[in-house]
């Protein structure tokens, strides 16, 4: 399966590019800290969602972008993480801040187990199997035998985390920073993994799975480990998502969720850690976009109905115009600027 060009290898990024990246990173951090402090509750909610989705999409990117396994079923790990958080809070009476790590651990194990069983699958078979997983998840969640924990159709209501510094941050803002903290930690971990030996092994796996095997890379072990890692990230996102929504119910985890993660990953740029943020913003804001545009004027009211078709059109347009996602587009712009300034482009 051909992926984004070799420039996607962050592990080999030259020094000059990194200092440019450092600037962006700093700007991003400033934005991330300042904006929620001055925004309304709804916008803080959206930002929190974006941060949470970024974690989930990062998980998927590690799987698909770096080890080349397409998953359309990560929503099931998200659901697992969310329900784990819910059960821990309601049944085990654990505090909210303990739930994401535990959810992550549970999902890591689950992902490892699932990954082990599907290691031999390539491309489309894996896509189909994970698609089936994603479609079947709500039904599995409604199983009678699990109702004691899952709350069946009604689901479980969660109490919202309260801010320990009510004078500085309201509850929404606190939850935002909590998620942001989790995200920063997880991003750093992912960055280190990707830039190290593991990352290179994964990229070798993605581009030339058979050659990688002959080079002594234990293919099956890496693949299932990546699945576990991906599931872990998605599970943490699920737990955070449950805290944000204050509720878990089987119908919150339909196939569109798994689809959303893949969309976010590809639109952002599947082999890029920074593209993840763009992708997360895309899936949080764009489905709503047509609705918001429609509210701008009575003559545009009909647009509200067309959110999903518009979303689909945007997806296809993105694939036609920027198949490398936003990260790919940024990279090609960077290359063009570098050439224009007579600096030899680093490939």
């Amino acid at each position, binding site marked *: 399966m*051909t992926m984004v060009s070799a420039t996607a290898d962050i592990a080999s990024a030259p020094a000059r590019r990194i200092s440019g990246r450092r600037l962006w990173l700093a700007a991003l951090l400033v934005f991330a800290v300042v904006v929620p402090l001055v925004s309304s509750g709804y916008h803080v909610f959206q930002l929190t969602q974006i941060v949470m989705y970024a974690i989930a999409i990062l998980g998927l990117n590690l799987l698909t972008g770096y080890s080349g396994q*397409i998953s359309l079923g990560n929503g099931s790990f998200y659901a697992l993480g969310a329900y784990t958080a819910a059960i821990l809070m309601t049944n085990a009476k654990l505090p909210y801040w303990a739930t994401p790590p535990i959810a992550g651990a549970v999902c890591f194990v689950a992902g490892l187990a699932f990954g082990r069983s*599907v290691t031999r699958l390539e491309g*489309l078979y894996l896509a189909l199997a994970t698609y089936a997983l994603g*479609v079947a998840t709500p039904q599995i969640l409604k199983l009678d035998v699990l109702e004691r924990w899952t709350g069946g159709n009604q689901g479980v209501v969660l109490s919202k985390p309260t801010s320990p510094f009510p004078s500085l941050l309201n509850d929404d803002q606190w939850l935002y920073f909590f998620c942001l903290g989790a995200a920063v930690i997880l991003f750093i971990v992912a960055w280190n993994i990707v830039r190290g030996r593991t990352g290179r092994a994964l990229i070798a796996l993605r581009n030339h799975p058979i050659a990688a095997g002959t080079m002594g890379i234990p293919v099956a072990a890496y693949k299932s480990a990546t699945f576990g890692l991906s599931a872990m990230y998605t599970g943490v996102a699920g737990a955070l998502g449950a805290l944000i929504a204050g509720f878990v119910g089987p119908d919150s985890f339909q196939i569109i969720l798994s689809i959303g993660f893949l969309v976010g990953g590809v639109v952002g740029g599947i082999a890029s850690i920074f593209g993840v943020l763009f992708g997360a913003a895309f899936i949080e804001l764009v489905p709503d976009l047509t609705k918001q545009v429609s509210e701008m004027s009575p003559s545009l009211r009909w647009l509200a109905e067309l959110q999903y*078709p518009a979303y689909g059109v945007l997806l296809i347009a993105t*694939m036609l115009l920027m198949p490398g996602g936003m990260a790919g587009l940024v990279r090609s712009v960077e290359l063009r600027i570098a050439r224009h300034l007579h600096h030899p482009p680093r490939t």
Partner: protein
Amino acid sequence: MQAFLHQLLSGLANGSIYASVALALVMIFKATHHVNFAQGELAMFSTYVAYTLIHAGVPYWGAFVITLVFSFAIGVAIERLLLRRLRHASALTVVIVFIGLLVIFNGLAGPLFGFTIKEFPTPFAPNASYGSTYLSPHEVGMIGVTLIVLAIVFAFFRFTRLGLAMRASAENPQSSRLVGIRVGWMLALGWGLASVLGAIAGMMAAPSVFLEPNMMVGIVLYGFAAALLGGIDNPWGAPIGGFIVGVLENLAGAYVVGSHLKLALALAVIVAVVVFKPSGLFGRTVVVRV
């Protein structure tokens, strides 16, 4: 015994729908090596078109034929206008595009036709003579229509020039060009045909599952399971896989699992095939070229 026979035959009737969907999936897979994730939504959309025609006064079989023409045209259009640009795109890109199509068609159905669940008529009257204790007239009709359609499709591929050209294009596009075949148009034709199969499946399923935007989601999952079971690159295997999966669904639903776990059952079939025998019952073993 009677109950078992009833479940078995009823399963065959359901299986006929999965057979059509599976065949459509296999046709596109053979020609393009892609799985058409939007198959179900296209079928659902076509069924809505039929519904609109019927409610505008067009007699059933007239609406049926017009819908087939419409879905054929949409299939061809999707290939010629969209997919042809993605001939060299990565598998991931193509998956996203199919998902985009899925979302578009699913998203258009509600606004265009309404979200309420609708009843879809069957041309096989409930008290017709060919019904029996085991099968309702509609179920007989479903099996009959599917068998006729399968026969036509197979005869087309086996005995006509165009069918030969399409088979050749799917197997070896380069050699096909070297004998003068316009491979791009053959792909478009394949898409049109697959679309038609999907529309037929939708119109046959709608009287039982009722017409609503998500009606094909579960059916398509079973279609995937059937296609994999029969061998994703084997057009003969697809309908056989469909009938097997239909019977399995019914028997398991009645005796083992309960009807509210149907999707989980499809998942189990898919995972089982894909883990133990990815080439399915009749597919060619996948050889990976180093």
